[in-house]
């Protein structure tokens, strides 16, 4: 016989447990048997290619929203929904894109040139579109016939094909778009091996195999569950304990354990992006306002920026903070692949750095306020920079700042120096122009250099790849000399998966393509 309070406790506990399991059963019933579980490192945000601006959304889109173009394992552009690479007019102002026929959206409707036009127009005109700046040079879009789309450009714009190999090239089901409008992300419909099934909460997305996919024979997985697991250590243990089949962005600290685990495969690709120290050289009152003279010793004395750079040992930073798994870098461009500038990065030279500091005649130590995101790895990075710069006469105050505050400070120009990264894009222009052209929203540094601005324009209008490579190499050199951004490293992006998961497409863009993946054998 239980006393009343005891009964009460038991009853409440039982009730809560029943409630818990009921709710869970309603939402998370065992409907996802056989699904591949992929852990993402960050939330995807709204699953609408129009509005999306997160890296992880691109991993989900890679499996349910095909694009006009894609890249192959060598990061070469290949047609996906387009039948071939665009035919570009001699003046570079007209792009004719042939569209494949017989392809259906995941709601069963047919893909044609008109659908492509609708999507592109939506990207260009929708108020909430994050694609606008990418498609800015495109002035009009025509569906010449059901299988050809013609784009008219204001000026020649070489990155366009690459841009159409990313979110701007995703074709949305016109029916779904008309129906959902701004809420397209609640139930996105594109062409893809998998179709959107459910997003019960911001941390879980379920995709199911699409019956309408043109190549559905090659798709073996019944579906995919993407689960957001932000802490790298948790991702790693979840993979090892068996709850999750695939993880992305394994942390350097976990890499030894993961790669020595006989049940796991790992593959690391260098990021297309970079991490660097953004220095406020001209952002007076906002990145989209005209640049000017800021009250920052690092802006006033370029020599100090050089001294700061020379005080840093990129190799040692990589070794200490990232277990040597990342790649030291000093340019916005990738260190491998066709756009690699192959420049020699400055090495640590304390004597030179001291001399440069002394030449400014400023009293040492020179105080620098460095904003870093407030997670332990970035704080560690800040601390190492602080220790290295100290030898050259700098007093770096590491100011660990909550991430959104850091971005907000960056955009508004309320900072002296900050550590920020960029996830990288296929075309080098997309890794450079937004950060160097005046009035660009991501130009936190307030860069405005005539030479670089001209070179960026030249890069956009030049068609020949070899010529462009030279141009971007020049930009990289100029940027390295000016040091509005002191680039530090390119992250290594490691995918780790269970041995029984085969057929994952994991290329240099670090997206996870699961169209040909299968869960075979025993775990």
């Amino acid at each position, binding site marked *: 016989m239980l006393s009343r309070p005891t009964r009460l406790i038991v009853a409440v506990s039982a009730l809560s447990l029943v409630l818990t399991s009921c709710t869970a059963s309603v939402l998370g019933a065992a409907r996802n048997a056989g699904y591949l579980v992929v852990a993402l490192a960050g939330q995807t945000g709204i699953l609408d290619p129009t509005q999306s601006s997160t890296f992880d959304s691109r991993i989900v889109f890679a499996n349910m929203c095909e694009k006009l173009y894609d890249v192959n394992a060598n990061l070469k552009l290949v047609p996906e929904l387009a039948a071939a690479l665009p035919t570009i007019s001699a003046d570079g102002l007209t792009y004719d894109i042939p569209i494949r026929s017989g392809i259906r959206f995941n709601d069963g409707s047919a893909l044609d040139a008109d659908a492509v036009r609708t999507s592109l127009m939506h990207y260009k005109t929708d108020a909430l579109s994050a694609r606008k700046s990418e498609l800015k040079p495109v002035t009009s879009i025509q569906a010449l016939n059901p299988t050809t789309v013609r784009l008219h450009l204001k000026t020649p714009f070489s990155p366009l094909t690459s841009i159409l190999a990313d979110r701007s090239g995703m074709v949305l089901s016109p029916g779904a778009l008309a129906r959902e409008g701004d809420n397209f992300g609640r139930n996105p419909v594109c062409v893809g091996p998998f179709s959107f099934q459910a997003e019960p909460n911001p*941390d879980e997305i379920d995709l199911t195999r699409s019956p309408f996919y043109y190549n559905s024979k090659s798709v073996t997985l019944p579906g995919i569950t993407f689960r957001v697991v932000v802490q790298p250590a948790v991702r790693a243990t979840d993979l090892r304990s068996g709850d999750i089949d695939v993880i992305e962005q394994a942390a350097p600290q976990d890499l030894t354990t993961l790669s020595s685990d006989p049940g796991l495969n790992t593959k690391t690709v260098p990021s297309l992006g970079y991490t660097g120290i953004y220095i406020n050289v001209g952002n007076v009152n906002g990145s989209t306002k005209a640049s000017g003279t800021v009250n920052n010793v690092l802006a006033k004395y370029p020599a100090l920026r050089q001294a700061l750079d020379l005080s840093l040992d990129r190799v040692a930073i990589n070794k200490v903070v990232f277990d040597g798994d990342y790649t030291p870098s000093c340019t916005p461009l990738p260190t491998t692949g066709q756009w690699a500038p192959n420049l020699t990065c400055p090495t640590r030279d304390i004597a030179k750095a001291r001399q440069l500091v002394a030449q400014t005649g400023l009293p040492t130590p020179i105080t620098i306020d460095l904003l870093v995101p407030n997670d332990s790895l970035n704080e560690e990075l800040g601390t190492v920079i602080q220790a290295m710069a100290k030898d050259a006469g700098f007093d770096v105050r590491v100011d660990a700042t909550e991430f*959104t505050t850091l971005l907000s400070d960056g955009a508004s120009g309320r900072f002296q120096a900050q550590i920020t990264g960029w996830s990288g894009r296929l075309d080098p222009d997309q890794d450079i122009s937004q950060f160097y052209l005046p009035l660009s929203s991501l130009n936190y540094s307030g860069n405005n250099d005539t030479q670089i601005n001209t070179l960026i324009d030249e890069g956009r209008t030049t068609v020949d790849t070899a010529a462009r490579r030279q141009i971007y190499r020049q930009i990289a050199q100029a940027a390295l000399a000016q040091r509005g951004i002191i680039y530090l490293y390119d992250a290594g992006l490691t995918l780790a998966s269970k041995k029984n998961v085969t057929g994952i497409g994991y290329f240099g863009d670090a997206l996870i393509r699961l169209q040909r993946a299968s869960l075979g054998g025993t775990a």
Partner: protein
Amino acid sequence: MTRLVLYRVGSALITLLLASIVVFLAVRALPGGPAEALSAESNDPAVLKAINHKYGFDQPLVPQYFRWLGQAVTGNFGTSPNSGLSVSSTLLNDLPVTLELAVLALLVAVVIGIPAGVLSARRPGGALDSVGSTGALAGLSIPHFWFGILLILGLSVELKWLPAAGFVPIVPDPLGNLEHMLMPAVVLGTGIAAVVMRQTRSSVITAMSSDYVRTARAKGLSEWDVIGHHALRNSLITVVTVIGLQLGALIGGVVTVEQVFGIPGVGKLTLDSVYDRDYPTLQGVVLLTALGYVVTNLIVDLVYSVLNPRIRVAGGAQ
């Protein structure tokens, strides 16, 4: 009595209303907004404006507040600009996870705290009491996130008995779910167990010197019947009260425990929504928490005032 109930309910409503105003204003005091957090990699001012317009964040504060409040009382907390999902459905999805964690933690607290309190109370100042009371102080002193790290080090990294982190839904895999929830529940429950133990101990000690316990002894009842039924039964009322008032500690603990063990519950949702400047979600979570706090207090208050006259006369509780 009716007057008292009305007064209490009225106070609770005022508290909630004030809390809703505070959270509404506080989230807007954070640097950056949902639009900025949302478009981290594009940051186009026109888009920011459009996002703010779509969700009504560009409206004057007063009508914005009342519109939100009007919807909130009907259970509609709006749409998260971050995920595009309805805040209510996200809350409903995450709440069971946290609820399960909380219930398991309370279970741990009760299962450890009450017997330990009773054993300590049997002989105050005795060896068992010294061990129990010091243990309770240790339980109060141990930072739970560190306790979590220690358990992970010991039980997962070294012994490999339990998964270090993560979450498995209860339905396809109840055993796996329990495996994942065990350490977090123990960690979260320890601090509460200490409070429960101390309250049980002091209530049972008070009860042990009461007349009715003497009566029970005089009837020839066994020690177990005397302590386990007569003394504990009356102590439980105060213990239950104290457990109710632990809700605040529970809410605070949930955030860190979910962080350490990577559990996707309300605690995680809360932190995420601060970081993402997800106004509607953050407002919803805080209002829900405040509601939980206010309702618990209201129930404890009312139950207590109903029970109190009788208890006070009986000398069964302080």
